[in-house]
């Protein structure tokens, strides 16, 4: 188990390192560079000044050298300054990361409760009317563009009914908890509705497959109660593949969070990434992207551990084969 966890953690770190290089390279390919932007904002700079500035910031060096310099500084906790906010990047990220985690955890919880319950119910009553209804609804959920779902919810609850705010999470410390929660309802509804359909489908398929296995028949034959057969023997086994898929979906969940945050002007990491890229704020874009990757990797890692805990065969196999 420990060995499994350590291997996965090391793999995650390698992915993060590779990602940081790829993203660093890509950011360098975005339109304009920091010096161009300085010249644009200060016409007094001559081309000789620009040359000096380039040398000062190390922008005339090869990309690998610049990347290693950035990495060295980053490992010491120096992620540079945001151009648009003129503040250290790390200072800006903290509250946004918290906001995104609140949004993601709340949405994931709602989506899992709805999705797993609906999937379980559908699997226990296959081909019933409700099963069909659940099937159609989950199909619509996986096929609807998230931004359009957000638009529809906004239209319904903010424009037609006028009961919920369409955007603009208040940031001041004097805002009450109730007001904050009111601003969370539509984003959480959007993101969880968008993910619940997928979870329902995984859950239903896994549960139907598990209930058809021989050990379920054995459990029934030895006289276990239906409740025990379904929950103890069925659900625990069906959850194993479901957890894998949910873990693989963390990236998609973050992508959904980006759309939701942008639509509802919710001050989280996703909106920060989008705004930073749009404003050529290189340092902020780079670090927010890496934090997004890190969030996904941590989610994956947690799911892997849950997986190993649910299925004891995995940690045994990992211990022997060393993978």
């Amino acid at each position, binding site marked *: 188990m420990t060995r499994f966890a350590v291997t996965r953690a090391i793999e995650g770190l390698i992915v993060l390192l590779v990602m940081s290089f790829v993203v660093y390279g890509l950011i360098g*390919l*975005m339109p304009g560079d920091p010096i161009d932007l300085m010249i644009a904002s200060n016409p007094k700079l001559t081309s000789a000044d620009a040359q000096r500035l380039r040398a000062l910031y190390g922008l005339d060096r090869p990309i690998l050298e610049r990347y290693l310099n950035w990495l060295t500084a980053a490992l010491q906790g120096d992620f540079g300054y945001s151009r648009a906010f003129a503040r250290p990047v790390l200072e800006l990220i903290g509250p946004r990361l918290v906001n995104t985690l609140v949004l993601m955890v709340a949405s994931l919880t709602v989506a899992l409760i709805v999705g797993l319950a609906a999937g379980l119910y559908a699997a226990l009553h296959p081909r019933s009317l409700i099963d069909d209804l659940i099937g159609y609804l989950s*199909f619509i959920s996986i096929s609807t*563009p*998230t*931004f359009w779902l957000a638009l*529809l919810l906004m239209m319904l609850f903010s424009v037609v009914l006028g009961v919920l705010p369409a955007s603009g999470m208040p940031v001041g410390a004097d805002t009450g908890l109730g007001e904050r929660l009111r601003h969370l309802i539509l984003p959480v509804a959007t993101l969880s509705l968008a993910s619940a359909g997928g979870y329902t489908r995984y859950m239903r*398929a896994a549960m139907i497959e598990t209930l058809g296995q021989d050990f379920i028949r054995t459990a029934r034959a030895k006289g276990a109660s239906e409740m025990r057969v379904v929950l103890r023997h069925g659900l625990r086994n069906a959850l194993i593949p479901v957890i894998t898929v949910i873990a693989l979906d963390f990236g998609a969940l973050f*992508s959904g969070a980006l759309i939701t945050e942008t639509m509802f002007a919710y001050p989280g990491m996703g909106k920060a990434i989008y705004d930073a890229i749009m404003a050529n704020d290189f340092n902020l874009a780079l670090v927010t992207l890496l934090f997004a990757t890190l969030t996904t990797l941590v989610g994956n890692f947690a799911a892997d551990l849950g997986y190993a805990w649910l299925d004891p065969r995995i940690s045994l196999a990992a211990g022997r084969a060393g993978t």
Partner: protein
Amino acid sequence: MPLLWGRLLPGGVLVLLAALALSAPIYEAAWGIDPNAVDLSQRYGQPSLTHPLGTDELGRDLVARLLRGGRVSLSVGLVAALMATAIGTMIGLLAGYFGGKLDALLMRLTDSVIALPLLPLLIVLAAVDLTKLGVPAAIAQSEDVSLYRIVIITGLASWTTVARLVRGETLALREREFVLAAIGQGAGAFRVMFVHIFPNALTPIIVAATLSVGNVILFESVLSFLGLGIQPPIASWGNMLTHAQETIWSAPALAIYPGVLILIVVANCNLLGDRLRDSLDPRSVGR
């Protein structure tokens, strides 16, 4: 899902929509409409004889925009899905056939790409300045470049499912007698992969390709919506919604039509993929 919608109905719906989108020039000629003609005196026009669904925020005919947008969204979806399928098939065949270190490397790569938050990365890719990659400025700034760029970006994001499926199929097929016979007769690795294994793995590949069309269209629509995909004046269902958020008070219909069309197309691609899988793979439990 019940068989209420029929096994091939989703395919029929898609063909119908594609035919409609292709008939855009006929509609434009019949009504005498230019889909890109801006007419500020006709903004937010109500449905009328000259404009069956009314006009958008720049006074352009909505039906013509929707048809043109359909051409773009559908063709981007098809081409990018084909590209994703080609990449995924190559990676899956290589990993499954050669196995060992190559397999481990390719599958770790695939797993990592699946786990990544793709949308933020696609946004960066969409924002990359092509002239810095050595693309001549004349091409990088032409109107059509946003089309090619979005095809490549969404294609790069969608190959993973195909790769995993093809790898699994290849692993199973590699041990079959006809493959062993081909190897025994001295066929080279690439001949075995493409002549003997690939045709037999075609079924899951087609299913995965169908499912990825829907996926690609979703990616295209959100990138275009954010202003990073298909650039106006070219219409796509995604970029027709870019201003919808500001007009939901005054012209809600503008926000409804393109979204409904995206939903119909993506849902039918997913349904068709599901149906194909169920008819072709008796073991699948998705019904």
